[in-house]
Structure formats: structure tokens, C-alpha cells
């Protein structure tokens, strides 16, 4: 599988006449605030709050994500990660506070924000009654990828996710891992500046899981886009994130690189220990409500996809 298409998919904007290629980041992105003071943050949240009835799902969250970073929102089920993400991608309006994506306010400039992000929701979501290729083409069209280069962009996105061969099959015949990769292809076809992944590997078996991570990592290395992901898996955050925010009961309790967070608690501390230290809870200790709800919805989705 060639890697080049992946780079083309994520590195080149639509109809980018006269736009010079930017240097790509390999490996570690620049740390926050060093020599990049002029760059506006990729994401900035200030005092962001959301309530469902009386229940405060997201409580005064502040976050800043620098361009090029892979940032993890880490917390158990029910912590408020998905709600935060849904506000960020303009599906929900914050009830207080403000979120901006590369300087554009999600509440007042949603169209502008949407053009900059690729979003992969928590639950597997692709149209089972269309083929893989059609699913990606749909998003290319909805993001106004010009007709001229559209077919090529679709093929590149499919190739980057290793889906060229099954692209002509109906998605209801795909495995969970394939659907997830298809969703990544859908998110990438617009060459987004910010990729938002909500629990990208939840519900996948270990092999599909490492496969999906391999694809995400390759993309990152090639295109150096900013990635915001949520997870309730420590190891994933530790392995793939430059910085993480620990989230619990709607609040961000601490934000730093996994290494710095662990260093706080001494040489042998794991991210798990750190989490317990800051939140008093564990990542596995699901709040019953969120946990059951997630399982039920995941099942329903699996059924719908056929």
C-alpha cells in the first residue's frame, strides 16, 4: 500500500491553485507556545458549559490545542467528552463560554468551522445502503470538493485507509474496523486542518484497533494535521497523544503531556495513577448511566448497519 496518496489527501487543499505546500511535521509536533506565538490555536475553549436538564455534562471547560498537536481528552464514560466534542463540531451550542477553531467561533461561524474539521463520531456511522466509495464521494460533494479533482481525491482517501479493494461493496458488508477506516476516509476527503476523533477505536477488536491506529499515525506523520481525540483507554492516550486533558464529571482536572503528568507522581507512576490522583476516580469505573447508554446505542448502530 503506497503512502503517497495519504499525504496528498491530507496535505493538499481543494483546488489549491498557487498554494505552496507547507512543511510537514514528522514525529513530535512543536510544543505549545515555543516560537509559534503568532499562530492562533487550533482549538480554544473558554468556560465551556453544557447541561442536559439539571445535569451538568460539561462544566466550565478550558482547553487550548496548538496547531500540529495530537491532543487527547481522557476520561471514563460519562465524563462529558462526547458532549464537549459535539459542541466543538457545531452540533450543540455551548450554554456558556466560547469555543473557537483556528479563530472561528463555533456558535457564530459554524459553516467556517465545519469546513476546517473532519469529524469521526463515537458510534460507527456510515450509510450501509451505499458503497464505500459512494460514502466518501458523498462527503467530497458536501464539502464542495471541485468536480475536477473529486474522483481522484475520493480514490486517494480510500487508498490511504486501505479500502481501495472493497470500495465498490455495500458498506453493510463491512467489518467494524473497515467502517471506522471508511469514516476516516470520509473525514479526510476534505483535507481538514483539524481531525476530531471521538473514541476512534471503541468497540473494535484488538487487531482492528491497532490497524486503525496505524492508519491514524501514518496520516499524522504525513500531513501533520491537528488531531483531537477522546478515549477512555490509558495506553492509547499514553502512546499517541502529545498532551492530554484528564476529564471527570464534566470538568478538566489536569492538562499536560503524559510524561509530565506521570513525572508529577514519581518515576513508576502510570497514567492510571495520575488519573486517580487528579480525579479520585478510575477510568474503568464507568458511571452506570453513561456506560449502559453507550452499550445500548452501540448495539442499535450495529444492527442498523446490517
Amino acid at each position, binding site marked *: 500500500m503506497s503512502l503517497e496518496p495519504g499525504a496528498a489527501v*491530507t*496535505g*493538499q*487543499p*481543494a*483546488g*489549491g491553485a498557487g*498554494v*505552496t505546500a*507547507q*512543511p*510537514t*511535521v514528522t514525529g513530535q*509536533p*512543536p510544543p505549545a507556545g515555543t516560537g509559534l506565538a*503568532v*499562530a*492562533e490555536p487550533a482549538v480554544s475553549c473558554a468556560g465551556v458549559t453544557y447541561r442536559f436538564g439539571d445535569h451538568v455534562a460539561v462544566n466550565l471547560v478550558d482547553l487550548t490545542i496548538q*496547531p*500540529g498537536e495530537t491532543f487527547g481528552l481522557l476520561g471514563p464514560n460519562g465524563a462529558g467528552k462526547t458532549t464537549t466534542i459535539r459542541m466543538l463540531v*457545531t*452540533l450543540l451550542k455551548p450554554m456558556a463560554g466560547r469555543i473557537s477553531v*483556528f479563530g*472561528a467561533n463555533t456558535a*457564530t*461561524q*459554524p*459553516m*467556517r468551522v*465545519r*469546513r*476546517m474539521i473532519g*469529524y469521526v*463520531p463515537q*458510534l460507527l*456511522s*456510515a*450509510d*450501509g*445502503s*451505499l*458503497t464505500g466509495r*459512494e460514502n466518501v464521494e*458523498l*462527503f467530497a*460533494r*458536501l*464539502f*464542495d470538493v471541485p468536480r475536477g479533482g473529486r474522483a481522484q481525491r475520493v480514490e486517494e482517501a480510500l487508498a490511504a485507509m486501505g479500502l481501495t479493494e472493497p470500495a465498490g461493496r455495500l458498506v453493510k458488508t463491512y467489518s467494524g474496523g473497515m467502517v471506522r477506516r471508511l469514516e476516516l476516509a*470520509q473525514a479526510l476527503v*476534505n*483535507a*481538514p*486542518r483539524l481531525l476530531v476523533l471521538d473514541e476512534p477505536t471503541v468497540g473494535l477488536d484488538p487487531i482492528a484497533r491497532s490497524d486503525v491506529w496505524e492508519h491514524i499515525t501514518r496520516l499524522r506523520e504525513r500531513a*501533520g*494535521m*491537528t488531531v483531537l481525540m477522546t478515549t477512555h483507554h490509558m495506553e492509547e492516550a499514553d502512546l499517541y497523544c502529545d498532551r492530554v486533558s484528564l476529564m471527570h464529571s464534566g470538568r478538566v482536572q489536569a492538562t499536560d503531556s503524559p510524561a509530565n503528568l506521570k513525572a508529577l507522581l514519581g518515576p513508576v507512576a502510570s497514567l492510571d495513577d495520575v488519573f486517580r490522583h487528579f480525579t479520585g476516580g478510575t477510568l474503568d469505573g464507568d458511571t452506570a448511566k453513561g456506560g449502559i447508554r453507550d452499550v445500548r446505542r452501540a448495539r*442499535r*448502530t450495529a444492527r*442498523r448497519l446490517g
Partner: protein
Amino acid sequence: MTSVAPGAPPAVSADQGWAPGSGRVGLRQLLSRMLTLCWVELRKLRHDRTELYTRAIQPALWLLIFGETFTRIHAIQTPNGIPYLAYLAPGILAQSALFVAIFYGIQIIWERDAGVLAKLMVTPTPRSALITGKAFAAGLRSLVQGVVIVVLAAILGVAMTGNPLKLLAAACVVVLGSAFFSCLSMSIAGVALSRDRLMGIGQAITMPLFFSSNALYPTRLMPGWLQAISKVNPLSYEVDALRGLLIGVPTNLGLDVSVLVAAAVAGVVVASALLPRLAK
């Protein structure tokens, strides 16, 4: 966009397109989204045609049994004494389009449950463009269904116009009518929020809509109260326009089309306003 951090792809994709940052719907964007969603509908129709066939059964029975029988017994006085079957055919065409459209909201609930709707709503597509696109996709599906009815009616000996302009106009009328009824369905979806409830409400309103229209019999044969209902039923205007165009019965085409356009626009406005309920 002047400062682009190293590593961030250039911001061109963020700034191209129509009125970035504003929620206003540009005409070009609206047309583009309508085309895209109609394209999706055609692809789906291509992958699975069973619905096209199963949905043809009921109208076929109406034409064959009801139509043939009532033609023979001359129970219903038709204008200009045209055969009842010919009078009925446009009514059944409209009915078949109504059935397709009134359950179209199920698709949007299915998309909500499958997580597809949320992803669609995160593309640079204003809600009203999404609804309009889906409404016209429903219209397209109704149109394909309608072709089956027209062919069937022709086989049964109904003499319909061969004028391509009139046929095109009839196609537009079917699409407009379906756009309205699919918006009604998507609005109900936004209120009911579940497939089962939508099915129930859909079933509860289709037959009243059908029988309170002029699809089966001329309005002047109805009791006064039913005539009043028929007057506010958009299906009557759809049937009336189709009769005028296909069979040549004298009609007020200008009024019919105006009512259908107004109904479709109102439908889009209401359904778009209710759409966020489905995304919560």
C-alpha cells in the same frame, strides 16, 4: 488567513465556497446540495429496487380493480364525460407519490440512529439546504415510482398527453407535491423522534389525506364539510394540476402550482426548524 503554523495544511479549504461563516443559504449551494442528495437517492435506488416494485402493487390494484370497476358502472360523473379510469389515473399517480413521501421521514430517523445525520450536519450544509435536498430526493423517488404508474395506465388504455412540455410540467408537479409531503414527514419525524411513532402517524394521516382530496372523485360530489377540507389539502391541487396536464381536464394550473410551491416552502421552513431536535 496570514499565519499558518508549520505543519498545518493551508487554510484554503476553510475559505473557499459560499459566504463562509454566515449561515445564509446561497442559491448555488442549495442547488449543489439538492443535486448531491438526489444523486444519493438514485444510487440507493440502483442498489435496491425491491421497494420500487413493492410500492407499485397498491396503485396497480387501485387502477385495475377500483378503476376498471367504476368505469364500468358509471357511478362517478366525470367532467367532459371522460372515462373514469382516465380521470382516476392522475389521482393514483399523486397517491403513489404521497405514499413514497409521507414515509420519507423514516429515512431521516434511520440516519439519526445510524449516526449519519450528525455527520451530515457537520458538513457545510445549512439545515434548510439539507431538508430541501432531501425533499427533492423524495420527489425524485416519487417520480421514478410515478413512471411505473403512467406506463401501467397507458397499458390499460388511458390516453395521456404526449406533449413533452406537459409531461415535464407534470413531473415538476409530482416533485413539488412530494417535496411538501416529505417535509411533512420529516417534520413529524422531528416531533415523534422514533420510527414506530412516525409509522403510526404516517398511517393515520395518509388515508384521510387521500380520501379528502379529489383523487377519486370530483370535489363537487363531496358533502360541504369535505369540500372545505379538500380545499386546504395540497394533494387536491397536485391531482388537479396533473389532471390538467396529463388528461386535458380544464384546471387552474396557476393556482395549483402556487399552492404547491407555497406548501413546499412552508414545509422546508418547518422541517428545518425541527431538524436540530433529531441531532440532540
